[in-house]
């Protein structure tokens, strides 16, 4: 996951960020906040989209330098679409994550972006892959990322259960993001959630005033 000290070196717009992905019974939920910041104190966007769709049932959450992340996801989207047409079938989530990993690893000197690739495919169902800064690829049942993630490791480790229902998983994700946004000054705005199942892709937005409140708020 991204560490704090890298932000002073990131030029331009960065996504001080909280992102997560959770596998539940029948699909995955990916979520993020919506704040983009420059430095520690200027919010350059309150409504940025950090959940990029790279294929019909595969999404990427981005963290780190926004420019780098957008460039990588754009390239990955192109390569994945070409791959999918050649194979005459929807791509595997593993294939999408591998493409991201190749791009991150081969350009590790220049890039400063990390990703969570999550989605659904016919072969293995819902999957989550972390592609970190240097190009590591790791499969996980749930994962968190971005600067805000440091504040919620305890919460997600304690509260995650395998095979949750959609409602439980949605509550879990919303709570986790709300807690992170509450403590991390470079995460904030609204909560974006995308629910990916075999049948459909659903985008849910939870505005700031509808976020769960915890005892000190």
């Amino acid at each position: 996951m991204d560490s704090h000290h890298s932000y002073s070196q990131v030029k331009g717009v960065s996504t001080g960020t909280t992102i997560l992905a959770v596998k539940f019974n029948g699909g995955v939920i990916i979520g993020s906040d919506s704040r983009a910041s420059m430095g520690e104190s200027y919010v350059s966007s309150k409504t940025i989209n950090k959940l990029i769709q790279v294929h019909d049932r595969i999404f990427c959450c981005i963290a780190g330098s926004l420019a780098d992340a957008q460039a990588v996801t754009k390239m990955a989207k192109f390569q994945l679409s070409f791959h999918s047409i050649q194979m005459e079938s929807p791509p595997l989530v593993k294939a999408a994550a591998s493409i991201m990993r190749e791009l991150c690893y081969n350009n590790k000197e220049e890039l400063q972006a990390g990703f969570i690739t999550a989605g659904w495919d016919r072969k293995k169902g819902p999957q989550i892959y972390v592609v970190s800064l240097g190009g590591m690829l790791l499969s996980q049942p749930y994962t968190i990322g971005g600067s805000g993630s440091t504040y919620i490791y305890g919460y997600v480790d304690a509260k995650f259960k395998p095979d949750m229902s959609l409602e439980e998983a949605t509550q879990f994700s919303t709570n986790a993001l709300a807690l992170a946004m509450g403590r991390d000054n470079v995460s904030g705005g609204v909560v974006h959630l995308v629910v990916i199942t075999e049948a459909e892709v659903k985008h849910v937005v939870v505005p700031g005033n509808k976020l769960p409140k915890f005892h000190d708020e």
Partner: protein
Amino acid sequence: MSSIGTGYDLSASTFSPDGRVFQVEYAMKAVENSRSLFCVFGVTEYAVAGLLADARSLSEVSREEASNFRSNYGHDIPLKHLADRVAMYVHAYTLYSAVRPFGCSFILGSYDEDDGPQLYMVDPSGISHGYWGCAIGKAKQAAKTEIEKLQMKEMTCRELVKEVAKIIYIVHDEVKDKAFELELSWVGEGNYWILYSTSITTFLWTSF
């Protein structure tokens, strides 16, 4: 027999007046100098007929394709895609006068727990098709007739191995063909096997 393409058969970049590329057809004749070779890569196996040197070169190409795919996409290449890539490569050599077409046909087989058993054949013209059963080489017509008698979808790998060996013996012409060595190979759930001549008699005896 077959027509001679005098004048139109000097290079692969020439069509005859009746729309044929004679160099490619001659390449397909080369397949009938059958010399089978079994190569294994991962859980895909190949059988080839034709010029051995061409076959070795092609199997190296297919290994590279499979390896690059694995490196880029993180999972093993589906057989249909591998067959397409090999076929495209073979086809490229039928387009130019500077090179000659490959003089070999390729049969690729694999087993995957999701897609099940698969069989594809690539010929010197660069076509690839999927098959339930196929044969290449001098006696392919006779072999195809025998294959058509089999109910492949209802047979196990073990039963088919015996049938295939029987077919090779049936189509071998004692008078015209020289003595042959049978090499058998099969790929199925979990593993692959290669049998060389000396073991085959023992295997077939114990199975019967």
